[in-house]
């Protein structure tokens, strides 16, 4: 019982996503010209992107906090969030490509949202490269925090202005970011869509927590073995 109390939010996420699998695949969806049944991907594909942005936002908070606390754990938290964000980013690309193949006949199209997603992945891959090119732990943490704050804000600006840059898009709502505008989504899809988003947020946070604990353990082991070396 103690376990359930401690893990209630994880269980909520699991239940939500189990419901999304059932509801997303079996409930009625509106019939649209070229989307047909593939519109169901929205519960999973969009969830990956929302999860990515959410967990990167969590990373941003820890990056900012690191600058004021200089606590190495905050740096590890930010790093773990970025890793999780990258995982979700790759999954989002993958699910998007599969969806595009079935609906549009090609894995890749020059589409603003797609490009935005790729840029997001590039930014955070660059973040990882930056980290790997600095040896000193404190310096690395500082540089990484500064870069990730700078990059996250510009990335959000990018996502918001991207739709303007295109005259053509396979995604709906060229002038804005739909899915975020409540009225845009068909009424019968909302009971699945919103739980799906919450479920994916919880999943991303859970994965982030695990990544964080793993990286703390890795640090501790490194420290211990270093101590041993200096002793011997």
């Amino acid at each position, binding site marked *: 019982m103690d376990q359930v109390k401690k893990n209630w939010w994880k269980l909520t996420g699991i239940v939500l996503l189990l419901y999304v699998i059932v509801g997303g695949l079996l409930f009625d969806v509106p019939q649209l010209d070229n989307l047909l049944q593939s519109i169901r991907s929205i519960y999973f594909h969009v969830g990956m992107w929302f999860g990515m942005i959410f967990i990167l936002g969590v990373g941003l908070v820890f990056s900012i906090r690191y600058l004021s606390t200089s606590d190495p754990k905050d740096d590890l938290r930010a790093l773990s969030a970025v890793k999780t964000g990258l995982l979700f980013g790759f999954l989002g690309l993958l699910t998007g490509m599969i969806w595009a193949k079935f609906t549009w006949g090609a894995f890749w199209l020059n589409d603003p949202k797609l490009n935005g997603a790729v*840029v997001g992945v590039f930014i955070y891959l*660059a973040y990882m490269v*930056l980290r790997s090119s600095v040896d000193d732990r404190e310096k690395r943490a500082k*540089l990484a925090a500064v870069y990730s704050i700078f*990059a996250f*804000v*510009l990335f959000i*600006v990018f996502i918001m*202005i991207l739709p303007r840059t295109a005259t053509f898009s396979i995604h709906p709502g060229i002038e804005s970011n739909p899915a975020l505008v409540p009225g845009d989504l068909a009424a019968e899809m909302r009971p699945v869509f919103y739980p799906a988003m919450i479920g994916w947020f919880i999943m991303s946070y859970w994965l982030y927590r695990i990544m964080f604990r793993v990286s703390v353990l890795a640090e501790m082991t490194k420290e211990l073995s270093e101590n041993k070396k200096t002793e011997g």
Partner: protein
Amino acid sequence: MKRFMHKSNLITLIYKDFRLEWRNKFALGGVILYLISTVFVTYLAFDGVIEMRTWNALFWLILLFAATNAILKSFIQEGENRQLFYYPLTNAREVIGAKIIYNSALMIVLSLAGLLVFIAFMGNPLQNTPVFLANMLLGTVGLASVLTLVSAIAARAKNNFTLMAILGFPLVLPLLLMTIRVSELGLSGGSFAAAAGDVLIILLIISIAVVLSVLLFPYIWRE
């Protein structure tokens, strides 16, 4: 030095950057030569297929590379010893502010040089020159304001052009896409009014980049 610092640190720092550049004329000459030879290579490689949109895209891409190259040295050029010397005399906000202003000026010079070379080699497609020039000014200042902090990070990481490029390119992309759009308007004879929305976004990006740079630079200035 002390007397100068008394007056206004910002202006002194900008002045110092210009002096430094002047003393090291080969570096500036190097960047300009880089610009010219890139344009020439592009001119040969794109022989006969340059229409207006290609012209525009090439122009901004080459400017982006020149900017990355030029701004990269803004922190590397000054060795650690000199940085130590600044610590008691000034503060981080003024240092980054001066660098952004100086890099903007440098980029304006570079972009004008680039434009001349482009027109010389590939013809002059400008139909609305004021719109094009105003946008060029904004775009280059934008490049300078986004890339200056990135160059500070790259310099601290003791790394080279590659790191600067992979850190900076995804960040300048929104700015670049907007400037290329407005630039196209200038090339096809569009009016200021048509560009207003995009110009506002460019201004917004520049101000965000400057504010964030000033806020964040103090954390990485001192070790």
